[in-house]
């Protein structure tokens, strides 16, 4: 049994975000972090490892510096990293990305008792599409929005969170589960772990590695293999300046209430 966790290195969009004059993101000036929901998937994998002693492998697709993220995850307890990287894979939308990652996972090998975990969505695109699309291309059942996961033999019981409640779902391995932040509290990396991280195996899969896989074809990967295209990207305008009311006393709140009443808002 092993657990594969798919992770992504993303620009940190929680702080100040720099935008180029042409409306694209100025990635060079931004910090990168491990996508937050992916950390919950990693933690879920490590908890299962603590309980069952199984191997945990982190898969990512991205430019070579993404290795740093994989080493960080190894310091937390992940046993092995797989970096899928190639110029041919660049420009992929969610369809093409899932095609490539599915090929990578399939190339690595999936056993009947394996679990694949992913974060619900990445904060750069917020699509939540790659997890389900990997599952589709690997012909695996999926459960998304997992708020609790329990394993009993080759059966998982997952609490799938809905907007108005939840569903309890049973699914057999091998399967794909996408994780939300309510699932757990990710652990910190340990000092001992940081030392070990560089002695753990890191596998690099390039276009050469995967080019003969049935999922990999020029028409299904990269920009040319992406069904969607960006027509235009832009920044929304700032709203016109509002009225700052001077002072924080009762006369200010009276004035505001007066304005609201005059505008028939209250």
């Amino acid at each position, binding site marked *: 049994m092993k657990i594969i966790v798919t992770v992504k290195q993303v620009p940190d969009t929680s702080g100040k975000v720099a935008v180029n004059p042409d409306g694209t993101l100025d990635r060079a000036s931004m910090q990168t972090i491990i996508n937050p929901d992916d950390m919950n998937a990693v933690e879920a994998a490590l908890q299962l490892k603590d309980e069952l002693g199984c191997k945990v492998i982190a898969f990512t697709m991205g430019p070579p510096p993404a290795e740093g993220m994989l080493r960080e995850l190894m310091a937390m307890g992940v046993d092995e990293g797989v970096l899928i990287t190639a110029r041919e894979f660049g420009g992929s939308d969610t369809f093409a990305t899932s095609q490539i990652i599915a090929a990578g996972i399939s190339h690595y090998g999936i056993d009947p008792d394996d679990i694949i975990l992913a974060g619900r969505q990445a904060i750069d695109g917020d699509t939540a599409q790659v997890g*389900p699309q990997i599952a589709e291309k690997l012909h695996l059942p999926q459960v998304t929005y997992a708020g609790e996961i329990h394993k009993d033999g080759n059966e998982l019981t997952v609490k799938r969170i809905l907007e108005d409640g939840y569903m309890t779902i049973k699914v057999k391995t091998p399967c794909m589960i996408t994780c939300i932040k309510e699932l757990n509290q990710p652990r910190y990396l340990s000092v001992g772990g940081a030392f070990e991280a560089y002695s753990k195996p890191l596998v690099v899969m390039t276009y050469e590695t995967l080019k003969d896989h049935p999922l990999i074809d020029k028409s299904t990967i990269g920009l040319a293999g992406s069904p969607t295209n960006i027509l235009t990207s832009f920044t929304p305008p700032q709203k016109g300046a509002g009225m700052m009311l001077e002072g924080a006393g009762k006369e200010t709140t009276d004035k505001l209430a007066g304005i609201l009443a005059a505008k028939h808002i209250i």
Partner: protein
Amino acid sequence: MAFNSADIGAFKNVWVFCEQRQGVMMPTTFELISEGRKLANELGVELCGILLGDNVDGIAPELGKYGADKVYVYNSPLLKDYTTDGYTKVIVEAVEEIKPEILLFGASNIGRDLAPRCAARLHTGLCADCTHLDIDMPNYKGFLTEASTLPAERIEKLGTVMINREPHSVERDLKMTRPAFGGHLMASIICPRFRPAMATVRPGVMKKRECPKTAEIIHPAFNLTAEDIGTEVVETVKAAKKLVDLIGADFIVSVGRGISKDVEKGIELGQALADELGGVLGSSRACVDAGWITADHQVGQTGKTVHPKVYVALGISGAIQHKAGMQESECIIAVNKNENAPIFEVADYGIVGDLFKVVPELIESIRAAKAAK
């Protein structure tokens, strides 16, 4: 003949996946039907609903009220509970047979589970969590003029793009606009080479509009067995506590990190002001993450997009995700101790001050102003 998603000319009509839970139509479905009606009119085609469930014919005719010409209904005990496998199989086979050119889903936890799976199996493009949809180019350009900082001459030039080194006219393509990078950027996405063009649409954004029609109810034959479904739904539980309806609210008072000094009192004040206005209590993500308030109150990128008549932000600094979720409100009032808080950039009225002092006074002032009317 085998299904070919690249044979664009073979596809026609706009479809909306009509999500129901426990036999009750999700409110977003009607928003999507209204939006779908607009797109179908611009294309000069029919608008059809696709409704899956067990014995759900009774809720199909209401879709006509918002402009559906037809509703394809698929009934089976196997479709009573939502399952990824069951719903994907039925929808994919329906699309392969009837070939709609556009297929919309609500971006609910179910829509976002189902749509990517269908798109991958159909080999077509899917755009997530859209907040604006267009066909008509003049309308789209008008939208960009209003909602973007793009220069007019760049907007005017839009119309043809290079797709794999070939010029392609986007006149009849669905232009799917969505926020990215936490709302810092917006992007319009097209799916030029495959059909159907698929999108999930953010709940609460599209406006529900009545457009009475008598929808024709159709029951196509379909194939689904228990073996097709790889998961088992043990139970579906509705939250016992009544969840806050932020999306439907006219008045929202939201609290943020500024209540940290006295969380209990801060929430009490926010609730009191909401009660005075006849509204509901919202919150920023910080309060949910800190465990001060339940997630159903959260406004913002990963929470909800709201557009009430009045939005009051108390002690909310205004992270871009939060602003993205509330800046379409008709009137925004912000109270914050920090005069440089980004929330003031979107506020119509700002008060720099301590919410613990300002809110009780504001409640009194509103009471007095109402009494004076």
